[in-house]
Structures are given as structure tokens and as C-alpha cells.
């Protein structure tokens, strides 16, 4: 057993990290959320370098790398507060590849893999409408909810901008105007892989919040010393580290499990989602507190991270639904346990 990245995996992480650092910043994230098209340039760079197809099978034009590599990209993107194009496209590709039929794969995967016909992810609301992330300009959407996944071509739906909590991703409400196509394969496993990728983004968000808190704890002086010298602050930072590292361990293990030990994926995915969603909430809120007044201003990035943590934490299966699933495996929680990935 060796629980650490190998050299190729480090190269993947370093490659996407340098692209994000040069092409994206929290300022870009704000402009993207406000409607400017900074993200189009980022997407073009990602496409030019071949990133959209990283985890898509080679038969469909992807690189065929594993879920571990996919989560490394997602974590880095989360840390950069990158928009939802990469995640949405990778998620939809994983759903079509894992739960679609051969026709659906042939039709859509090559475009998702090259990035030329982008996919976007959304949730299916009980009233039959959808809420989608960064869906403008996408060729197709997959809406997930109620244990089903509906594949919708861009021409068969209408998008209206919706006011989202997360200011770094554009939210659209989706009205279906034409036909939909259901993904009827093993949706559970495919969704678990997507939840692991989403959890990886949350690890990146939490890591960024911790990094900012550490800068503040070292530089901000009160009562004549850096606030990080006070245990009320430093112990809070230690707890943030515990949350970040625990969620990172859980996500890496779940990603490896998805590729090598799929029968163990349901539990591993629940551990990853609960650790990442709850951990990112604790860490982003603690970071705002460590920052004090400046952390509560509109201009500071603390609220962007916190908003992302809330929004992504409640996308797909909620932490509570995953807790119920883990309990149900032990004969607890009653018969009507909430299904995950609503």
C-alpha cells in the first residue's frame, strides 16, 4: 500500500495548478459571476491543453486517466475558485459514460472529451424544472434528481439567469421545451464518482480558506503581537488543518476506490462527501472569523469561499442523506432513509 500521489499524478496537479494561477484569480471569478466572459478564455485554454477529456475513455477521444487524476484537477480548480465549466463537463461526461447507452455515449462523449461540445450539470427540481451550473453555451445538460438523470440537448430547453448563493458560478433555471433522454444505466455508481469530484473541489475551497486564514494569523497584529500567537486563533487554525487533511484523505481514497474497488465506493463516496461538505463549511466559516471585520466585507474573498462551500455542499446528495445511508447499512435510521443524490 502506498497512500500518496505518484510522479505522474503530481505532474497532473502541477500542470493544472500553473494553468489556473496564470489564467484565473478571485477577481476573474467575481467578474464571471457578474456576467463578464472571462471564463470563456479560461475554457479555451483548458480545451487547447486537452484538460476536458482527462477522465473520459480513450475510445471517445479522452485521455482515459482515472478518478484520482480527475479529483486532483477538481481540487486545484476549487482552490482557484474556477467556474463550473470544467466540473460540469467532467460530471456530465462521467454520467453519460457510466449510465448512458451506447448511442448516448457515441453522440455526446467525443464533444465532452474535446471540450468542443461542452456538457453542464444541473439538478432536477420536483416541479420538473431544473437549476444548472454555468450552462450558457453548453451543448447539452444532464439534470439529476429523484434517482433519475435526464439528458437534454441545448436546443430542447430554455435558460433564464437565476440569482445564486455562489457568486463564482452562474446559475440558470432550466425550462424544458423539447424532448429529454434518460440515462438508464448504473446511475448510482456514476453519481458517486461525480460526488467524489465535487468533494475534491470542496477540499480545494477549504484549503484556500485555510491559506487565507494563515496569512491573516501571521500578519495581523493586535495587542502588540500577531493574532496567530494567540491559542484562540492558532487552535482554530489547527482544527481547520484537521478538517482539510481528513477531507483530502477521504477524497483521495474514494477516488482510488472508484477505479480499483468499485464495490466499496458507496461507503467511500459518503465518507468523502460528508467530510468535504461539512469540513468546507467549518473551515470557510472559521476563516471568516479569523479575518475579523475585514473578512465580512464584500471586497474580501472569504464570503466567496463560504458561498461556494454552502452551494456545492448541497449539490447532489446532502451530507444528511449520506449519513442516513451509512446508518442504514447498519440497520439504523428507519425504513424511509432519504436516497442520496436527489
Amino acid at each position, binding site marked *: 500500500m502506498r497512500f500518496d500521489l505518484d510522479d505522474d499524478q503530481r505532474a497532473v496537479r502541477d500542470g493544472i495548478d500553473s494553468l489556473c494561477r496564470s489564467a484565473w484569480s478571485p477577481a476573474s471569478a467575481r467578474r464571471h459571476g457578474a456576467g463578464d466572459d472571462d471564463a470563456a478564455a479560461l475554457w479555451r485554454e483548458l480545451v487547447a491543453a486537452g484538460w476536458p477529456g482527462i477522465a473520459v475513455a480513450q475510445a471517445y477521444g479522452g485521455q482515459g486517466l482515472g478518478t484520482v487524476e480527475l479529483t486532483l484537477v477538481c481540487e486545484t480548480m476549487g482552490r482557484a475558485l474556477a467556474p463550473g465549466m470544467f466540473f460540469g463537463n467532467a460530471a456530465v461526461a462521467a454520467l453519460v459514460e457510466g449510465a448512458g447507452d451506447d448511442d448516448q455515449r457515441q453522440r455526446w462523449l467525443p464533444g465532452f472529451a474535446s471540450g468542443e461540445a461542452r456538457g453542464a450539470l444541473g439538478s432536477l427540481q420536483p416541479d420538473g424544472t431544473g437549476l444548472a451550473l454555468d450552462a450558457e453555451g453548453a451543448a447539452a445538460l444532464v439534470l439529476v434528481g429523484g434517482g433519475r438523470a435526464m439528458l437534454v440537448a441545448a436546443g430542447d430547453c430554455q435558460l433564464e439567469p437565476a440569482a445564486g448563493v455562489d457568486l463564482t458560478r452562474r446559475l440558470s433555471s432550466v425550462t424544458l421545451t423539447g424532448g429529454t433522454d434518460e440515462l438508464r444505466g448504473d446511475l448510482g455508481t456514476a453519481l458517486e464518482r461525480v460526488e467524489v469530484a465535487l468533494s475534491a473541489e470542496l477540499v480545494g475551497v477549504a484549503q484556500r480558506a485555510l491559506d487565507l486564514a494563515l496569512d491573516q494569523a501571521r500578519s495581523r497584529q493586535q495587542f502588540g503581537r500577531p493574532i496567530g500567537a494567540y491559542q484562540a486563533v*492558532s487552535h482554530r487554525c489547527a482544527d481547520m488543518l484537521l478538517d482539510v487533511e481528513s477531507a483530502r484523505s477521504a477524497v483521495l481514497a474514494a477516488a482510488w476506490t472508484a477505479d480499483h474497488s468499485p464495490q466499496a465506493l458507496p461507503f467511500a463516496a459518503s465518507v468523502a462527501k460528508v467530510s468535504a461538505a461539512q469540513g468546507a463549511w467549518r473551515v470557510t466559516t472559521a476563516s471568516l472569523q479569523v479575518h475579523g471585520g475585514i473578512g465580512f466585507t464584500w471586497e474580501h474573498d472569504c464570503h466567496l469561499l463560504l458561498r461556494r462551500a454552502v452551494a456545492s455542499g448541497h449539490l447532489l446528495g446532502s451530507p444528511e442523506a449520506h449519513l442516513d445511508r451509512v446508518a442504514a447499512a447498519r440497520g439504523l435510521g428507519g425504513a424511509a432513509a432519504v436516497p442520496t443524490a436527489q
Partner: protein
Amino acid sequence: MDLSLTPAELEFRDELREWLAANRPGPEPGDTEAAIDHRLAWQRTLFDAGYSGIAWPREHGGRGATQMEQAIFNEEMVRARAPAPANIIGLVMGGPVVITRGSDEQRARFLAPILSGEEIWCQGFSEPNAGSDLAALTTSAVQAEGGWVVNGQKVWTSFAHRARWCMLLAKTGDDQRHRNLTFFILDMKQPGVEVRPLRQATGDSEFNEIFFDNAFVPDENVVGAVGDGWNVGITTLMFERAGLSAASALAIQLKLDDLAALIRDRGLQDDRSLSRRLAALVIATETMRLNGYRGLTRIIEHGVPGPEGSIAKIQWADINQRVGELAMDVLGGAALLADPVWTRWMLRARANSIEGGTSEIQRNILAERVLNLPRMR
């Protein structure tokens, strides 16, 4: 990255499982002294089968296996619900310190009886006025003909009344903090050493106080250099924290299975609040296991344990305490009655955030040595 066991690791595990199925000892006696005898016999059985000192080098009498195999061994012992060997302190701390910091003579003298369990070791670090602030200890060692004369008091020493050797940290000079301590191996069987049991909040007496009244340590039992005891002691504590967390996590998962059974037995399986608390503990414990294996990979690749072991120590204490609290809530009105399993667990867990370095000290270590935050002192 590869989370599966290698063929060699699988072979080691399967062989061990088979051996454990055939050789696992019966239930441990309730009486403390009888339990130590039981564990001594168990250590002898392990030793005879070549399962003592799994990751110790062969030249020092160990099995010469990898750290990963040591962790697999620890997990399998827990899975088989086998007790820890009696000389756990010697195996986990004493031996590794003698191997890494001791002299050839010390290795020749001390290692073999640690492995066989013939000589039990205890740890004399904490004092009544030096707990978290270990460098403030006052037990002194003064140079005399051929060795050192020790006076003072130590507390919270497990197995002291049965131990032959004590890993003793004592003050050997008036120089600045951290440079005036020396690490000794002190013979417990001498007139200047008195051991008194210490009764704890649980009512048990797992620990002892040791009083030194002109006790003697010969020069050849100094480990490392005189004045370098702080560094030798820190190495000891890091060995204590390393490599055990995966097995500790498995032990908690087994306890959580018992707690889930208690919830069902009491007809509370539909209580969503209790079941979610249990699930949250199952998940936290799994992250502790995974953190443990990630840390172990780091130890294997970088040689020595690092400060990250503090993460597992904090998690372990926190989870154990929450398990005890949940058990009380599951028992409900019946929690008024002393339960031999769950009341004891609830009480014993309160020491988990104190023993082996308090959770607050662990957070200081993470803040200062991992996060590089400014020191509070």
C-alpha cells in the same frame, strides 16, 4: 497511489490471520494483575511465533518486516480482538528509542527481553508539576561515582509496579530549558524506587506514581548525550503516535458496531438523530484510519514520524469521547446504572484528550510545526 495490499503484504496478512485463528488467547480476566499476566503469556506466544517486533530490524531480533506490515499486524490483532502484548511500551517506545538513539551495548542488553516480554518497560516523563510543560520537570539526576543519583517523583506511569526498566527524563544541569534534560534507563528493582498505585476517575488503577529516593543509574544507561534528553524524549513520543492510528480506528469501528447493536436492542433503530450521530462517528473514524495510512506512507518515505501524528491523536480522543456520550444517550434512563462496558468507556475516554500529550498541546504542535504560526511563548 495504490491502496491495495501488495502480494507480499497479502501473504503476510493471510498467514497471520490463520495463525491468529488458531492461537488467539481466551477472554481477558477482569482483575488488573491477572490481565497483565494474561498479556505476558500472550506476548510470549507472539514472540515464539516470530510476531514480536514486527518492524524491528532482524539484526536486533525483530521480524525485519515493513512499517506497513507492522500496521497490518496491529489491525489484525484488533480484528481478532486479541489483547495488546504486556510490554507494549517497550515494543512501541523503549525498543525503537534504543535502536535509533542507543549504543551497541544498550542494544545488546535491552532489546531481546523487550521482545520476549521478559522485562516490562514503563515511561517516567510526567510529573505533578510538569505535565504539558514537560521541560519544567524537577526530578534530578546528579553525577556520582560511575553513574547518577536520582531524586524526585513521576506520575501517570502504566505498568510501573510490574516494570523492570523505566525510561526516565531527569534534569542534569541548570542550562536553558530543553538542554538540561537527560534520558536514562533506570532499573526499577532497587531500594530507592517506590511505586504507589494511583486510582483514577474510573475507579481502576491502571497508572502509578513513582518516587525516587537516591535511586542509582549507571553511566552506561544514559541514552544519547547528557543534556540531549529532550530530543530523545520527543523521538519517543513520536513513535508513540505513529503507526497506531489505523489499528485504533479499527478498534473504534468495532465498538461502533457494538453501539449500533445496542441501539437496535433498545428498539431505537428508527431514531434519526441517534442514527445520524452514529453514522457521523463511523465517518470520522474512517477518516482517522485514512489519515493514519497517509501518515504511514510519509513515515516510510521520509524515515521518521512527523508532527502530523498529532491530527490522529486529536481525532482519536474526540471520537472516543463522542462514542461514550452517544452510548449514554442511547441508554437513556438506564445511563444512571453503572454499565461495565459503556460507563467505563464514557469515563475512560475523558483521559484520552490528556494522556500522551493533551489535545491542546497537539494543537500547539500543529499550529507551530505544521502551519508555522508564530509561537505563543
